[in-house]
Every structure is written in structure tokens, then in C-alpha cells.
């Protein structure tokens, strides 16, 4: 397959996690992965970000297809279903809001900065070595939360890449689900089956 420049965007993913290991403030860059797909979807009504420029999609494609780490088996039906996709989106959004709440609590002094990365919303992994000296506590708290979210979802993505198809993550990726909903609404096409071929 011909390689395009965007096929190398997986480097961004690797850099992101590596930088967050040294200084957690770099994790703020993760917001790019939240805003760019939304800009594409709201502005252009396209999933161009998912289709080409998503660093995680490229990472999973590279590992699963080029390096052959994927079993390339079908995902279980429940995982591909709408209930799970929308449910996971809701769960993810709830966790995002709770992260914002925690940031707000730290900013008002109601809570103290926790220098840990929380994996799978449960396991606290000590991450004090990457804690920035002298940063405003809420700025640090938010970045710890964002890095936790990014790392957890990356691990989930890699696990499903190994078990199922390389880009299985894309099926239940909350950003992908959300941008598809936006695009379908913009295209005036929430019930796809009823429309003729464009």
C-alpha cells in the first residue's frame, strides 16, 4: 500500500505518551484529539479526522496491519452494537465531567492535587516523577486526568487491536461515535436505511 504522510501520524501518539512520562504538562496536547475531530465534524460535516489524521487510528493500523500484531478476528456482536457504542460514549463523557469537577475542586482548594494516573478509572498509578514543579495545582490536576483518560483508552484500543481487527477501537471510540452522530445530523440522515444512495 502506498504510504502517505498521514500514515506516520502514529509517531504523535508515541511522542505524547513518552513526553507525559517526563512532564505531565505535555498531556494538555491531548486536547487536540478532542477538538480536531469536533472541528472537522461541526465545520465540515466530515469524519476526516478519523478517516485520515487520527494518530491513534494510524498507530493501531500500523501495529495491527503493518507489524501484524492483530488476530484480525471479528469483534463480538455486543461490542459493535449501538447500545455499547452509545453507552461507552455516555460513560466516557461522565468520566470527563467528573475529571473537570475534580479540577474545579482543586482550583477552589476543596481538594488537593493527586499526583497519580488513574488507569481504567480505578487503579491509581504513582506518577509524581512527572509532576511539574511550580505549576498551578488545577493545571496539573487536569493534565493528570487527561493523561489518565488517554492512556486508559490507548490500552483498551491496543487490547482490542490484538484480539480483534486492527482498528476495533474506532468502533467504540467515543469521539468517533460523537462525530458520526454530528455528521449524520448535519447530513439530515439519522435513519440511514431509508435514504437512497447519494
Amino acid at each position, binding site marked *: 500500500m502506498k504510504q502517505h504522510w498521514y500514515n506516520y501520524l502514529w509517531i504523535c501518539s508515541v511522542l505524547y505518551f513518552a513526553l507525559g512520562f517526563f512532564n505531565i504538562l505535555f498531556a494538555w496536547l491531548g486536547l487536540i484529539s478532542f477538538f480536531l475531530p469536533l472541528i472537522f465534524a461541526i465545520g465540515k460535516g*466530515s469524519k476526516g479526522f478519523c478517516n485520515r489524521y487520527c494518530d491513534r487510528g494510524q498507530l493501531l493500523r500500523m501495529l495491527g496491519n503493518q507489524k501484524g500484531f492483530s488476530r484480525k478476528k471479528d469483534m463480538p456482536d455486543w461490542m459493535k452494537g449501538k447500545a455499547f457504542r452509545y453507552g461507552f460514549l455516555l460513560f466516557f463523557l461522565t468520566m470527563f465531567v467528573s475529571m473537570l469537577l475534580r479540577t474545579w475542586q482543586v482550583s477552589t482548594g476543596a481538594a488537593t492535587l493527586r499526583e497519580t494516573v488513574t488507569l481504567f478509572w480505578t487503579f491509581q498509578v504513582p506518577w509524581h516523577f512527572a509532576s511539574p514543579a511550580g505549576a498551578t495545582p488545577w493545571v496539573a490536576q487536569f493534565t493528570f486526568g487527561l493523561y489518565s483518560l488517554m492512556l486508559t483508552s490507548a490500552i483498551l484500543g491496543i487490547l482490542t487491536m490484538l484480539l480483534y481487527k486492527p482498528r476495533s477501537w474506532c*468502533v467504540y471510540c467515543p469521539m468517533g461515535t460523537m462525530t458520526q452522530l454530528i455528521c449524520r445530523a448535519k447530513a439530515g440522515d439519522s435513519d440511514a436505511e431509508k435514504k437512497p*444512495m447519494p
Partner: protein
Amino acid sequence: MVIEKPKPRPPAKRRAVPDRDRCVACGACEAVCPRGAIKVWKGSYSVVDASRCVGCGLCARECPASVIAIEVIA
């Protein structure tokens, strides 16, 4: 005596048919299609250009949601 070569059987015509309702519009199919025959339409679902699709099945194998069927057309 002339021995005639058996005529090669014409290949079965196949075409990729994505399920629009279950498609997640990730674009994995678009990335692997060697003929540019499958595209994500307005970020909503994949559509196939029947004049370009040769039914090779690369997209169907790639699709993480496994929603592309390869159908034989008469």
C-alpha cells in the same frame, strides 16, 4: 486436428456492500481500497462506487465493525 483451448470462465462479478446502518464511518475501508471505490459519505457511512469496485474484499476484511458484505452480482 485442432485442439481448442477451453475458454476461460469469466470471473464472477462481485461487489462490496456496506451496511449503512451499522457502519461506524471510521474510513478503514477507504484507506485500503486499491481502486478508490469506497468512500465515507459526509462522515456518516461508507458508500461504494459500483463502477469502480471489483469486489476484491480487502475492505470487508479490514472493516473493524465487519459490516461490509461481498455480494455476487448476476
